[in-house]
């Protein structure tokens, strides 16, 4: 998006963090060593974006600049570099369809068509009722369950045209469809269930007893960590939670004991965190 286009939209006059967000912002800034507050620019921009209906007005960027005592242009640079920051208003449901090669090979074009048909808009547009914005995105890192879309903070994977339409319908009805694979796949496991490592080989006597327990522990720890950060309340850390969860998942994915929908579980924690 060119800066000119971003500037053309009607910009609100002013922006200021809400008292809760201000407190969160202060907590985030406190994590960085003195003199390095500018490092907090990403989480703060995210916070600002969440506060202003999922887009970043100029006033919000200016507010963050002032909050971190950095030149405004340095904040504009960051905000325009990351595609996750919307410089123009978006609909309530912000649908990003991954159209990069793996997803495209697995039928992302169908998702695009489904959206266009269903919503009557083309890519990059917003429905007149401001409910949906649909854009094309580059690889969102869930190629294994391609094709996929990101809607708000959630990933919906293993989609097809009708599935996409169903998703849009559900959103239009005000529901929050369960994120993750839409065909019941457990995380990134094979569709038909595990195909390898079906049996955990017997441990050799020489190995220390505690070793096998260590890995799941680590994974849990990571998930807990993520949840903990989420509790701190910042948006970007929500993304951090996602990553944490992914790691936890892939750590577990080989194990037959993996519980399905663990991702969704972590997600709902995330939701709780964001909503706090």
């Amino acid at each position, binding site marked *: *998006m060119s800066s000119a286009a971003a500037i053309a939209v009607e910009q609100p006059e002013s922006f200021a963090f809400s008292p809760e967000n201000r407190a969160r912002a202060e907590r985030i800034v406190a994590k960085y060593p003195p003199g390095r507050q500018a490092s907090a620019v990403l989480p703060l921009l995210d916070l600002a974006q969440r506060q202003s209906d999922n887009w970043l007005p100029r006033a919000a960027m200016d507010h963050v600049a002032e909050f971190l005592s950095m030149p405004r242009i340095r904040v504009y640079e960051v905000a325009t570099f*990351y*595609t996750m920051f919307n410089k123009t208003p978006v609909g309530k449901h912000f649908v990003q369809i991954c159209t990069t090669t793996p997803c495209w090979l697995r039928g992302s074009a169908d998702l695009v068509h489904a959206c266009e048909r269903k919503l009557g808009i083309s890519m990059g547009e917003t429905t007149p009722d401001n409910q949906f914005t649909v854009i094309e995105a580059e690889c969102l890192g869930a190629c294994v369950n391609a094709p996929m879309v990101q809607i708000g903070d959630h990933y919906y994977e293993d989609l097809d045209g009708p599935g996409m339409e169903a998703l849009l319908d559900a959103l239009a009805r005000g529901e929050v469809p369960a994120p993750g694979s839409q065909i019941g796949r457990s995380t990134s496991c094979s569709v038909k269930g595990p195909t390898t490592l079906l049996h955990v080989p017997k441990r050799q006597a020489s190995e220390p007893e505690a070793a096998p327990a260590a890995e799941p522990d680590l994974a849990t720890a990571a998930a807990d960590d993520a949840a903990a950060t989420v509790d701190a309340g910042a948006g970007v850390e929500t993304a951090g939670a996602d990553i944490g969860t992914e790691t936890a998942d892939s750590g577990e994915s080989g194990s037959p004991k993996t519980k399905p929908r663990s991702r969704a579980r972590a997600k709902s924690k995330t939701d709780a965190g964001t909503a706090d």
Partner: protein
Amino acid sequence: MPKLTIDGMPIEVEPGTSVLQACEMLGVEVPRFCYHDRLSVAANCRMCLVEMEKAPKPVASCAMPCSEGMVIKTNSPLARNARRGVMEFLLINHPLDCPICDQGGECDLQDQAMAYGFDRGRYGETKRAVKDKELGPLIKTVMTRCIHCTRCIRFAEEIAGVPELGATGRGEHMEVGTYIEQAITSELSGNLVDVCPVGALTSKPYAFSARPWELRKAESIDVLDAVGSNIRIDLRGGEVLRVLPRLNDDVNEEWISDKTRYACDGLKRQRLDRPFIRRDGKLKPASWNEAFAAIAARLKGVPGERIAALAGDLCDAEAMVALKDLMAGLGSPNLDCRQDGAAFDTSCRAGYLFNSTIAGIEKADVILLVGTDPRHEAPLVNARIRKRYRRGGLQVGVIGPGVDLTYPTTYLGAGPPTLQEIAEGRHDFAAKLKAAKHPLLILGAGALARPDGLAVQAAARLVAESCGLIRDGWNGYNVLQLAAARVGGLDLGFLPGTDGRGTRGILDGAGKGEIEVVFLLGADEIDASRLGQAFVIYQGHHGDRGAHRADVVLPGAAYTEKNGTYVNTEGRPQQGRRANFPPGEAREDWTILRALSEVLGCKLPYDSLAQIRQRLVDANPVFAHTDAVIAAAWGSFGQPGSLDGPPFKSPIENFYMTDPISRASVTMAQCAEAFVSPATGKTGTHG
């Protein structure tokens, strides 16, 4: 100290030297776009790739520090191919608009494409186009030409201290600009045109006026402030088309202020191109002989003490010494080169110089600014302070106007009482100065032009002495003069003689009728309404305030049109060379005075430039040392007195219009409108 080999030549360098710098020391040329020796290293253009033995791929020499035993090849097939590749990528999105680009002929990209470019493109897709940015009245942008070297961004942030430029967007959508539309609010913004290696940023007033190979170049000295920036004047025919900086590390490094660069269009407007005589209340054209005759007639029988002379801010030393000698011939002791009415003590040269030198600022660790706004009084002095600040560990205290100087300052107080507290050691800052290794005080010319100037000067001297600013090999007492002519005039003693009157006395005397004839040598910053009934002779180059009040106008030469000596605020005599001829019948100033002296019957004893330059040396030996600063001996000066005057304020209200040349400049008027008016709430017409 690492030793390495470059193209087979061994070299030993300081640790931390980059390979590119080492190549430069050896005279090996490495192409570059983003590297600039006065800016931080960005290493993003990759044009400077060289082959390094044992490295798996070519390395960017600008960012690669030299280390022991390196073997570098700058001209191997690998290095050449790498550069060709980089060049091909750079040209992918660069438009093929050299024929309509103002940078053509002096474009780094053009030159290097000649050396490393491919003669046809292999790229068949569409090129990107970028919307141009509006950066104000000085800089024209054609952003499609930008190669994203980020020099301009680094210049604005590092040197100018106005972090307003940046790179927004990413990848193919990256754009260099301000994001929100705004003019660059810096007095150094014109230098962006010089740092931009391509035609993305060019000079707006100069747009489409000439090709570099059509231009004649003359080396000169800027006179629009007291820094004495070294400049190059580019002319076509007799017309000054632009002013560019010349490198002088002691003075302006390689920057100049926007006024220096862009006021040159003022040289073409409002010029006095023939003598005028006031008849029936109106200035009427006259011949030189008539003008001289009119002066001779009026001066007849007027005793010396009823005659006075004032020298303005842009005068060359030659003209001032000629006028001084002429006044001596007429028996007048009433002369002053300080048209701002300053009456400070000039008995000690160190008392009115920037003693530490401008380059010396880089040594300072504590700086006290007294009644000065260096950002607008001498942008390049301010840039030096900022340069020093960026190295870290600098404290700046300010007494006077609290303005944004582009670096953090501690506000100590508004007026002379604070200075007195420091002088008497009653203020914390005194301790800081005392503890400093190289403490510095910069006293603004505005602070000296006040009625209590003598006392301020004495207090500043006291600070210097009591806080250890004067020590072996270091003199931290500095006066920041405003006018290019000032130090030259003071050095020549263009000052009231025994029982003579200074500026204030002359104006009072003229008002009361005690002064009958006033000779204004380019003096335009006085209150002409106070000249009363006096007969005013104005010699100068612009029809400005002085000429409007004059009874006889003698057309002189502007700084580009004469061989002139100017002593900058450091006390550095520098010579500007004549680049073109004055318009019409106007003449070089000292020759006018020489001719007039003959008519007045007190012929001046010099007929050539060499002779008058010798006269300068006789008047003050510092004129023998062109381009050098002769350290002035410390002494006692000033006159302690009451210091409870009003707060200091900078004499510069409008940076873009301080003298007859910049007031005549259309570009400066646009700048004043764009930058000064919004801040002060004035409209452009107040200029």
